[in-house]
């Protein structure tokens, strides 16, 4: 018992153990609620809701009417859960940096690569996230929604997506890191 508690308090688990936990969550998602895990869709649901409130004509198209219906969907609640789950995880290992001084940019590798400025991190995160969300919209899902959830149903789309993701990810990392690659 003590061993399990101590393991839960560890900052990083073996990825295999954490992977088994996520696998079980994936099974439960299908079993209990007949739906798949996913993160990127939730933001599209929320964006659609916001957009239809602000500019209904622009958002009155096939994508937001049929593919990604706006509203407070299952995925949105799931993402809220992910937020708190991540916080609980960090709190359990006492690495939660809520409100602390370097909390906005605390990653040593990031600081070494791009510099210590917090605004740089926010700008890069903002534009990178636009790319991520747009790409997830094209592909039909993100790492969790398509690669993992699709993969566990053996959907060919998931494996195409994973191949593309790693191909361009490796190239991008090569360009960013060059000699330090």
């Amino acid at each position: 018992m003590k061993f399990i508690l101590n393991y839960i308090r560890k900052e990083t688990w073996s990825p295999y153990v954490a992977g088994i936990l996520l696998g079980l969550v994936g099974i439960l998602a299908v079993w209990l609620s007949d739906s798949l895990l996913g993160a990127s869709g939730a933001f599209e649901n929320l964006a659609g809701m916001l957009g239809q409130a602000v500019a209904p004509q622009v958002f009155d198209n096939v994508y937001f009417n049929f593919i990604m219906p706006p509203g407070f969907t299952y995925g949105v609640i799931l993402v809220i859960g992910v937020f708190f789950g991540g916080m609980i995880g960090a709190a359990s290992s006492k690495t939660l940096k809520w409100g602390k001084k370097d909390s906005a940019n605390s990653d040593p590798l990031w600081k070494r690569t791009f510099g210590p400025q917090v605004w740089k991190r926010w700008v890069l995160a903002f534009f990178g996230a636009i790319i991520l969300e747009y790409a997830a919209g094209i592909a039909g899902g993100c790492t969790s929604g398509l690669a993992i959830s699709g993969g566990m149903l053996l959907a060919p789309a998931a494996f195409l997506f994973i191949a593309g993701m790693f191909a361009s990810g490796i190239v991008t990392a090569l360009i960013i890191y060059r000699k330090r690659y």
Partner: protein
Amino acid sequence: MATSLIALFLGVFFGFSLNKAGLTKYNKIVNVFRFTDMAVLQFMMTALVVSMSGLYILRGFGLITFPNIPGTYIVGNLVGGLLFGVGMALTGY
């Protein structure tokens, strides 16, 4: 209401496992593309294997039916994946 609670419950464990695998950190995500830390792949593939075998066994017993399988659009999935990789390596999220 019940579905919302299930979603919240599953989300908490989803986020918890992501945090414990270290996937909430920039260095873990970007290092998989630099081949210096394979945690992301180990995590993803373990999750895939566990849920894949679990789901197919449960379906074999007739306990579950699969939800809509994500559609295959070869160009869409591939182009989306290619763009996604750029964003992922840039931001590390």
